[in-house]
């Protein structure tokens, strides 16, 4: 039993190819259904974002699992396998776990530490769960990855700090005003950058967005594009400045449209209510000296870009801590995989006990009335359950392969169990149901004798 991963990402494939291998647009459910019909993979999860398409699977044999996965991706998207091959990476077993943990942590993202990927990993898992293609192994693997994502987020600064100019502006506004709900935003100029920043502000739930532009028609068009914003003529700018909390200037004017004296005049009746001015125009729209006024916070595009650079540098310095968390969790996952080595023995042991119980109950109670028989059935089942509880727990808690092997061996010999498959922890031996033996009918409580016979 092996974990296998086949995929392409922004690291290996150009955007043209990534666009073509997009499971989301072609229907993730139908992809999973097609996969489920294939014999080579026992479990599967497809993670498909704009930067990666990855197929996580569980297979009996690595090579056939890989081939089947690559073939599936190529066929499903109508691609030539040969042209796909150079861009595909494949990993196996614990390397799959490490890769998924790094992905969930945001370590493998284009912008390191970006927050959306963890949600995308969760979605991928739940869609596969709904399609009934997730089994115990991938289920556990993905839950481990959610924990890694959460730990990295709370224990490191990997995801902290805005890494785009628009988000940096929003983050600053929040540091000045706290909640942005109920705030009033004024956008001066009807350009693209102003619109983008206003959209981000809008997403934070600001109360009102007003666009002023020298050409009223432009302002109206931009306001419409933002949705829920209003447009106002240029002459009303001073009135609007008096009530606004956040001003975004993005005109194409050759000289500043807001001088220090102008802003001072606007600030006086505001009684020191803070004003956050974001000047994203080039050349600048606001005289830099206006930033000296108490309670005026003036940031231009260079200032915002500088904070973005600082944030990126800070994220980079957190990578080592995040990687350490990933390694720790990979170790824990390895331990879990090993403990699964005991599962075939546990199942065989339980089946053996239950078979003995049933045959004895049948033999001894065939002449009794039905109610009594049912009662005896219940009691004996309970006795067997209780007797097996501790050994089962003990076996499952074993973490190293040699001990698991020794215990399994001893139990097999002592109770005459059918030989369970030798545990191969690193490859994650899967739950296996040993074939029930045909001689169930004449079993007696003579385990030792029976085992000698074999």
């Amino acid at each position, binding site marked *: 039993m092996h974990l296998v991963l086949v995929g392409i990402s922004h690291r290996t494939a150009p955007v043209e190819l990534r666009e073509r291998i997009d499971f989301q647009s072609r229907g993730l459910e139908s992809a999973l259904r097609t996969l489920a019909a294939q014999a080579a993979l026992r479990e599967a999860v497809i993670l498909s974002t704009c930067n990666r398409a990855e197929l996580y699977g569980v297979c009996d044999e690595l090579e056939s699992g890989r081939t089947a996965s690559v073939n599936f991706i190529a066929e499903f998207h109508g691609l030539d396998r040969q042209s796909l091959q150079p861009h595909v990476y494949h990993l196996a077993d614990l390397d799959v776990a490490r890769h998924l943990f790094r992905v969930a942590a945001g370590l493998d993202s284009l912008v390191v530490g970006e927050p959306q990927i963890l949600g995308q990993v969760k979605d991928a898992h739940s869609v596969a769960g709904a399609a009934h293609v997730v089994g115990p192994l991938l289920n556990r693997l993905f839950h481990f990855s959610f924990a890694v994502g959460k730990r990295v987020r709370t224990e490191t600064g990997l995801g902290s700090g805005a890494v785009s100019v628009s988000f940096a502006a929003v983050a*600053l506004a929040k*540091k*000045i005003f*706290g909640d942005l709900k109920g705030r009033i935003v004024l956008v001066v100029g009807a350009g693209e950058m102003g619109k983008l920043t206003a959209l981000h502000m809008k997403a934070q739930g600001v109360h009102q967005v007003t666009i002023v532009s020298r050409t009223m028609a432009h302002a109206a068009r931009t306001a419409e594009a933002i949705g829920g914003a209003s447009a106002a003529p240029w002459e009303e700018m001073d009135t609007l400045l008096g009530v606004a909390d956040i001003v975004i200037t993005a005109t194409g004017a050759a000289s500043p449209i807001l001088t220090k004296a102008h802003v001072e005049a606007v600030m006086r009746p505001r009684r*020191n*209510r*803070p004003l956050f001015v974001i000047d994203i125009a080039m050349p600048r729209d606001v005289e830099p000296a206006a930033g000296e006024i108490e*309670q005026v916070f003036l*940031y231009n595009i260079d200032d915002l870009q500088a*904070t973005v650079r600082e944030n990126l540098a800070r994220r980079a310095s957190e990578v080592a801590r995040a990687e350490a968390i990933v390694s720790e969790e990979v170790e824990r996952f390895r331990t879990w995989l090993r403990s699964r080595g005991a599962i075939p023995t546990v199942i065989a042991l339980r089946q053996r006990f239950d078979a003995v119980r049933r045959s004895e109950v049948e033999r001894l109670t065939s002449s009794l009335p039905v109610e009594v028989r049912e009662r005896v059935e219940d009691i004996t089942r309970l006795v067997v359950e209780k007797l097996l509880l501790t050994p089962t727990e003990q076996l499952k808690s074993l973490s190293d392969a040699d001990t698991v092997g020794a215990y399994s061996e001893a139990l097999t010999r002592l109770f005459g169990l059918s030989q369970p498959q030798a545990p191969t922890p690193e490859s994650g031996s899967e739950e296996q149901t040993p074939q029930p033996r045909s001689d169930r009918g004449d079993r007696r409580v003579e385990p030792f004798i029976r085992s000698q016979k074999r």
Partner: protein
Amino acid sequence: MNFIPLALYAAALVAYIWHFAQRQPASGRAATTLLVAGALAHTFVIGMQTMEVGQLPLSNAAAAISAFVWLLILAYLYTEMTTDERAMGTFILPLAVALQSIPAFRPGVEDRSAVLQGPLFGVHVSSLLFAYASFALACVIGITYVLLFKEIKAKHLGFFYARLPSLQVLDSMNQRAIAIGWVFLTIGLFVGWIYATQASASDPRVQAMSLLDPKIFVAVICWAVYSFEAFAARRLGWGGRRSAYLSALGFAIVLLNFVPISYFLTTSHNF
């Protein structure tokens, strides 16, 4: 007796600083736990002293300081629980630890004279202590406001930017603390004045009760400063940095009145 809360506060201070620097959730929880333990121990100490004397132990400077620290910690814990913000602990606790070491190392003797008993005396001292605790919080919030303000103004978003709540939140917390403190300061001074007119004139301390006594004089100045701050915030739109500086000034006066004047200068309040 006051050593146990002192030790717990000091341990909490270390934890808060650690949490402030590292921002690990576990260290934050440890810090709060230590502080709550300290507050409980402190409550126990004050409760025991109350049982022993038969009234709240407020009648000597050391005991009053201990009660002040206790109120400050409770006020801070309330702020922390309501805002879910631990950053301020790093700034409050140094003050609490410094002040708490006074009752811990110089306990003072409980004065049982008749002048220092009765409900009016209790109301007078406890409202003033509560007012001072509020002002201490306001001062610390003001300092953090200025630190954050300077970072944002200087466009160098660093240490405090990542750790403090927004300017708006700090400003409104500051104003609320000032408003609450001002109400209790007014009540405390007013009750003190009524109390002084009613107390028996035989005690030399009561005879010394006048506006010219340093303790009373400075308390009135204090009231003037905070009244102005509260007025300016509402009528003149003074907020932000000006409020923050006034809070720091006001609390500097409170501290001056509370420790050096209580111990060395006053003749009316020398307990």
